[in-house]
């Protein structure tokens, strides 16, 4: 009795001897330690020895704090005193993360439930200690998966076989505009446009048949009624018996991708369209020359060859501009920036693109105007502006240059009819000519390319429609 109160090893022995059925029960329990009122260990079972890596003899009579990480020992002693004042069966440290410490020093998460154990020697305390490492790991894995689902940009949802929404992540909230509370319990039909209700039913039928549906492209409605293009992947969900209970659905918003695809298709259609006009002449004249060469007058022949040459050059320039534009967009163009003399650049541009017969080009660029640009690309800009003027402008072309306040202005002007009003707002956009491109004979690309290049050099290009004629002005920082 005294020895029990003193928490000695022999006290334990006596407890076991005097309460044999209890001792056997305790030994069979999965995990238990019996503690004396003074906090010393009165009894441990085999499971506890294995859990902590101590032998029974190492533990008996020791303060129970030896099973705790050191940092918890002080506070535990205080809590133990509190429990002693009001002993009843309860889980320990509700809401706290509890840790045990093995003999090796390794810490592990535990769940502890405390019960008072009245004996004739006084009220002892039973602590049932459970190693919850595995459970914790499973919880962490579940939490990780849940956070992956929550943080996904894709809408990840779950629904029953009758189409009732039962799970709804943040991505779904963003994509569809319904918060989880609004969506859960609704039918997936709220997301389905009227003309696609049967499609949704077919998807659910496929799931019920155990099929997985991958990257099914369709349309879903947001809460605000806006349609979104989505790609759906549906998989059957099953209960623990393997029975199909519904579907998990991953929806990716592909509206932007669809828009880009449509823009690309439009671009290709426009480019093909632009090529048709020169090709019509090239193919037509080729056929005529092949069949009628000897019937043709010298004048017809000369005109044919001149037209062939012009349209061949036009088709080549169109293709070159298209490639340049695509390289600029892809960031694959390397510029060699150097100081370029404007007057010399204009002369070279006029050499490579001389005015056609009947057109004059007057140059009024003072010497010693210079900018920092890629010489070849800068000439390309000038050449594009010149050929534009030759093709659509009047017969008199004037190239001006001036320096003011650290900037250089270079203007290509003509005395023609100017750019039609309806083309002006989108003049520097690719294929801005749109439906008029054919009638304008425009490449639809040249000016877009000019602007990209000039902007890449830190400058700007503008159109000034003040009559008479058209006037394109390049503004660049002075070198």
């Amino acid at each position, binding site marked *: 009795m005294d020895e029990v109160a003193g928490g000695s090893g022999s006290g334990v022995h006596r407890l076991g001897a005097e309460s044999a059925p209890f001792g056997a029960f305790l030994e069979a329990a999965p995990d238990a330690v019996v503690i004396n009122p003074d906090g010393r260990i009165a009894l441990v079972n085999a499971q506890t020895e294995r859990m902590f890596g101590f032998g029974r003899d190492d533990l008996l009579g020791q303060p129970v704090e030896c099973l705790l990480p050191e940092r918890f020992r002080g506070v535990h002693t205080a809590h133990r005193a509190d429990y002693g004042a009001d002993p009843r069966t309860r889980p320990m440290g509700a809401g706290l993360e509890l840790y045990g410490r093995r003999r090796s020093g390794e810490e592990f998460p535990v769940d502890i439930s405390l019960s008072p154990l009245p004996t004739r020697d006084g009220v002892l305390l039973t602590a049932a200690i459970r190693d919850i490492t595995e459970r914790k790991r499973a919880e962490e894995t579940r939490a990780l998966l849940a956070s992956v689902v929550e943080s996904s940009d894709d809408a990840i949802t779950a629904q029953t076989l009758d189409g009732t929404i039962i799970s709804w992540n943040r991505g779904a909230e963003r994509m569809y505009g319904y918060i989880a509370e609004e969506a859960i319990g609704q039918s997936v039909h709220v997301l389905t446009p009227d003309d696609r209700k049967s499609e949704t039913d077919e998807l659910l039928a496929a799931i019920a048949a155990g099929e997985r549906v991958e990257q099914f492209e369709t349309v879903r409605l947001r809460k605000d009624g806006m349609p979104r293009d989505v790609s759906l992947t549906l998989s059957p969900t099953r209960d623990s018996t393997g029975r199909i209970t519904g579907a998990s659905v991953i929806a990716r918003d592909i509206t932007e991708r669809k828009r880009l695809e449509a823009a690309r298709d439009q671009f290709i259609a426009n480019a093909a369209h632009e090529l048709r006009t020169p090709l019509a002449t090239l193919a037509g004249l080729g056929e005529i020359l092949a069949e009628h060469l000897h019937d043709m007058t010298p004048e017809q022949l000369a005109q044919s060859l001149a*037209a062939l040459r012009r349209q061949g050059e036009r088709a080549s320039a169109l293709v070159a501009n298209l490639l340049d534009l695509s390289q600029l967009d892809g960031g694959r163009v390397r510029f060699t920036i150097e100081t370029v003399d404007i007057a010399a650049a204009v002369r070279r541009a006029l050499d490579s693109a001389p005015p056609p017969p009947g057109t004059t080009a007057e140059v009024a660029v003072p010497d010693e105007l210079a900018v920092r640009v890629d010489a070849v690309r800068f000439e390309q800009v000038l050449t594009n502006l010149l050929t534009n003027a030759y093709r659509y402008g009047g017969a008199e072309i004037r190239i001006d240059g001036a320096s003011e306040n650290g900037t250089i202005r270079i203007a290509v002007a003509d005395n023609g009819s100017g750019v039609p009003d309806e083309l002006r707002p989108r003049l520097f956009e690719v294929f801005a000519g749109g439906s008029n491109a054919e009638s304008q004979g425009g490449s639809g690309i040249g000016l877009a390319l000019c602007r990209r290049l000039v902007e890449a050099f830190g400058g700007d290009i503008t159109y000034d429609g003040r009559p008479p004629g058209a006037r394109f002005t390049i503004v660049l920082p002075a070198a």
Partner: protein
Amino acid sequence: MSPTVLVVDDEVDLLFTIGLSLELAGYRVLKASSGEEALALAAADPPDAIVLDLRLPGIDGWEVIRRLGDAGAFPRTPVVLLSAQVDAATAARAVDLGVHAHLAKPFRASELTGVLSGLVNG
């Protein structure tokens, strides 16, 4: 006397090419590079057929056909419509109006002369 064909296209080189192929096929050719010019020519020197580009600066090919109809020249004078592409809507509209033939650019010169010889009793 050889039949007269009015060719309307704002692309100078294409206008020349179509005209040349028709001249070499034995037609007398009138050329216009805008709808207004075409209407004036058609009124002054009524052709036996019109080869008409759909997209023109100013009034387009549809409007040219409408005004030819108002003037009683269409559908009496057969029209061969040229367009960059023959999509379903354009084709349907051409058929509705009673356009006699519709060719997509680029077309073969022999295709055009073949179509015209079926329309013009030259």
